[in-house]
């Protein structure tokens, strides 16, 4: 299934950081949702600032408009504030994109676990967990732990989880 671009993507002003505060808020919200849905579609979990500038999301060659580096960083800051992004280094060159936040993952995992506990058979991971990277999994489990719904146990041959 090909990625569906939102109407803003073809609107030139979308690529100019708006000076009007209210307009800017709406613009940034649209950018955040576009960035996240793009990452979700392509199962991207980490982004490097360098490649991102050339990524079709921020560089729309058809209308000859691209988002400035300054604006990209502002969008990323918005994502970070919402909990969808985490910088991997101080210089802000690499980041983790959590188009689904750990808490949301945790919930999904818990639901799946509860479901599979009901049925006494070997279960495969449902499609939504495909591609889930380990670090994301661990964070989700930690979120569940904070919530009191799970516990991460260290065993001799690795880690295990106990669900409540």
């Amino acid at each position, binding site marked *: 299934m090909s990625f569906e671009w939102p109407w803003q993507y073809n609107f*030139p*002003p979308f*690529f*100019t950081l*708006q000076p*009007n505060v209210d*307009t800017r808020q*709406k613009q940034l919200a*649209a950018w955040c949702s576009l960035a996240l849905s793009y990452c979700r579609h392509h199962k991207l979990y980490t982004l490097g600032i360098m490649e991102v500038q050339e990524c079709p999301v921020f560089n729309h060659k058809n209308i*000859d408009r691209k988002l400035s580096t300054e604006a990209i960083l502002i969008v990323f800051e918005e994502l970070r504030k919402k909990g969808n992004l985490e910088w991997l280094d101080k210089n802000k060159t690499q980041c983790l994109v959590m188009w689904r936040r750990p808490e949301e993952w945790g919930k999904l995992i818990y639901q799946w676990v509860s479901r599979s506990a009901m049925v006494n058979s070997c279960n495969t991971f449902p499609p939504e967990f495909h591609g889930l990277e380990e670090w994301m999994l661990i964070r989700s489990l930690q979120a569940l732990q904070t919530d009191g719904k799970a516990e991460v146990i260290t065993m001799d041959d690795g880690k295990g989880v106990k669900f409540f």
Partner: protein
Amino acid sequence: MDRFTWSNGLLEMNETLVIQQRGVKLYDGEDKAKLDVGIALLSTHQLIWRDLKNHECCIAIPLSQIIYFEEQAAGIGKRTPPLSLGYFFRRLTEELSQKRWESTPMSQPIPTATNSQTGRTRAVGIVGIERKIEERRKETEKNISEAFEDLSKLMVKAKEMVELSRSIANKIKDKQGDITEDETIRFKSYLLSMGIANPVTRETHGSGTHYHLQLAKQLGDILLAPLEERGGMMALTEVYCLVNRARGMELLSPEDLVNACKMFESLKQPLRLRIFDSGVMVVQLQSHSEEEMISSALDNVTDKGSLTAEEFAKLLGLSVLLSKERLLLAEKMGHLCRDDSVEGLRFYPNLFNSQA
């Protein structure tokens, strides 16, 4: 040596230094003079020798009094290379042949070679300098008056024009019955754009607040019609040009104009001085509706899809400055958004707001 006189070694106004030569010893005839090693300076007017050790000791001889000189390679300044001294003599020969001192006389007339002359020489020098200053002043005055000759002629004409318009205005007043009102009004408008009969000047109303108040009243009258024509708003620079062109003679300074415009509100005039965020100052009609202006701007932009300030100006027949201000205002109100790229600054309808 008796031709040499004591000198301060300083050059005069029209005198130029040609060449100087260090390490020169002076000889009077066969005997060595009581002067040691010094520096010889050749100017367009005189030959100066200054003692290197004692700078106060300085003598000079006017070139005009050098009858004959010859170069003696041997014995002259064994320290200095003969080559450079030869060059010095070449320049001396040149100066003597050119006789530049004749075309550019010094203020100090060439003194005769007697020591008792020194006192009188100095007095003559000062008088000469004074004379020169007086000459220069007269010259400057002449130049200035020549330059302003044309302007004073223009002023005379302008005065005549104002007199003419005043007399015609009076004639109209007297002959009220003969001329139709329509024609009178038209003629008065011509007068207005050409020259005001009684300009408010600093002489009639002094300076300061009172002056500005009167000025503001007058401006209120003058600017109503032009403002209506231009859609209710004019940049202050346009106002300045219009008003001064109408006044003709007693022109307004920019400060006076601004100060007068600031008083519109207190005088309950139907005009306002308004300063935009960007610093642009305009005079606008009180009745001027902001919302109307913005909504019409939005309509225009939506109609064309997007507009730059230049395109908008062309559409409305306004200056680019004012049309940009209008677009910026609409953006501030949230009706428009901007697209800033290498292609320029364009304004679009704010779809972020209107579309979900």
